[in-house]
């Protein structure tokens, strides 16, 4: 699959930060259909996440492809489980404030977190563990 060049990831992160700042300072409901600014903020958030997801890594090899698929699988599982859990909470407490309201943004966000965990955190940790084991031998 054709992907965007690596620098789009940086643009995506910058846009996401801007959108987060805007969303936290926005005093109205983001889904208020009479105020187009809400739609604007939501579209920037969505665009930034899509840019992050669809840009290449610095070295884009086959393991990165494999990690992309794996993180998609994990993130779908996480989102579905969370939704089910929240719904169960809502029915258990008989309180509709627990009813899940996550949208596609949440799936993309979980995907970004899982993917970067697999790409950066996991290799780093496993390397540290391997080094420790090496010292013991």
């Amino acid at each position, binding site marked *: 699959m054709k992907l965007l060049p690596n620098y789009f990831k940086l643009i995506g992160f910058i846009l996401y930060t801007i959108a987060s700042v805007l969303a936290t300072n926005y005093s109205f409901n983001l889904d208020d259909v009479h105020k187009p600014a809400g739609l604007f903020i939501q579209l920037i958030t969505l665009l930034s996440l899509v840019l992050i997801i669809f840009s290449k890594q*610095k*070295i884009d*090899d*086959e*393991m*990165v492809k494999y990690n992309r698929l794996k993180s998609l699988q994990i993130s779908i599982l996480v989102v579905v489980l969370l939704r089910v859990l929240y719904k169960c909470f809502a029915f258990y407490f008989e309180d509709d404030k627990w009813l899940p309201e996550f949208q596609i943004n949440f799936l993309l966000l979980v995907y970004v977190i899982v993917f970067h965990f697999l*790409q950066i955190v996991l*290799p780093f940790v*496993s*390397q540290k563990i391997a080094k420790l084991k090496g010292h013991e031998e």
Partner: protein
Amino acid sequence: MRNNLKVERAKLNLTQEDLAQKIEVSRQTINAIESSKYVPSTVLALKLARVFKTTVNELFELEKND
């Protein structure tokens, strides 16, 4: 699946980084292959064999439970 990438690498005195550059992958990928966390595709296995001037069968070996 077992592999003797580490041994072959030592014979040629290559670091993981050197090998990664030769076959255009990241160092993390080489590390993952060596520690059997990732099974390379046929193309990558052939590229590895070409670097070490050997065959894929010499580099990778099936285990009983595979």
